């Protein structure tokens, strides 16, 4: 098997695993459909925006939850934003944690919020890792002269 075929196989397998394990959902496919020769880096660009946005929001969340009097409305607003952007790129597991996190906000449950913030950080770093690996594989494939398969 030549290098290109092998890399392609690796990429496809890896991508499939991300879907199977629930890291990504169909919305990610939607994004890939929007990528073409005129916009070859679209997915990477959107995902990078997501990374920036998420990191900002996670920091804000930590700050707000450190306060004496927690402003749960603010917490909810940040989680809502994160829920939105994760859903827009198909980061399913992150989105799901956001949903349960918001319930804690509604209940003004401090412990719950802190717990979910931790879980959120965890899921975020997982999906970030996975996506970075995915992009790396794509780069390797392209460098070897291959093309990214249409999933």
């Amino acid at each position, binding site marked *: 098997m030549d290098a290109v075929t092998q890399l392609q196989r690796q990429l496809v397998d890896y991508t499939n695993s991300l879907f199977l394990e629930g890291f990504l959902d169909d*919305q990610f496919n*939607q*994004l890939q*459909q*929007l990528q073409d020769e005129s*916009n070859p880096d*679209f997915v990477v*660009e*959107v995902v990078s*925006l*997501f990374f*920036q*946005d998420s990191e900002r929001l996670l920091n804000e969340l930590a700050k707000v939850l450190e306060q004496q009097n927690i402003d749960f409305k603010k917490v909810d*607003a940040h989680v*809502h*934003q994160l*829920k*939105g*952007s994760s*859903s*827009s*790129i*198909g980061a399913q597991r992150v989105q799901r944690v956001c949903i349960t996190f918001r319930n804690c906000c509604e209940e003004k449950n401090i412990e719950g919020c802190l717990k979910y913030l931790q879980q959120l950080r965890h899921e975020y770093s997982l999906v970030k890792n996975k996506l970075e690996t995915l992009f790396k594989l794509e780069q390797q494939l392209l460098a070897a002269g291959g093309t990214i398969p249409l999933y």
Partner: protein
Amino acid sequence: MTTTANGVASWRRISDKIDGFDLSPSKSDEVHVLAVDDSFVDRKVIERLLTISSCKVTAVDSGRRALQFLGLDEEENTNSFDGLKVDLIITDYCMPGMTGYELLKKIKESSTFKEIPVVIMSSENVLARIDRRVQEDFIVKPVKLADVKRIKDCMTREIKLGNEESGINKRSYEKAECEIVGDGLGCSLMKRLGRVGSGDGFQWLSDYCLSKAGGVLSIALLSKREGLQNLSASGHGWS
């Protein structure tokens, strides 16, 4: 939008309706969309979705900026409309400062722009007590290519009521006036129309959320993610 005596509703390109603007179809067939969303990620996605659907896009990050672009912002004191003509406005619902609904209201209050169709995007099954005569459509986030295509198709064709191509009796659906409360629209709606709830049912519903009859707009909220079980409806006026 116009509604004729027998209830035929039509979507018309704003170019057909506004005098005083040079909007000859021969100039450009491209639909110009003003997209409003406070999220970087969503702005980028919606921009791409629209571009790939052959629309011109202007994306702004707030209702305020949208009004500025249209020349409606009081503080700017602009009387001239120097942007490109806007054919459609797509806005996020939940935004800090001015919500999508507040933006929609401002636009509908303007004699110049009230004819521009406004589509609202939201991830929530919001308490959508939105004046149904002003809101043209609703998209559930995350936005997909199919959603944009649907909106665009509706903009450029006439929706004739009583069209049987769906194989469903559209009449009964069209006469519905629905309030989407809390959990949204669903099982009861479809049962009334003689269809058992299923995933497919939702897909069908979303195709007709633009139906308009006698000035009453039916809003269909598609929420595949939440599933049928979360949905309920209070509706009246079904035939």
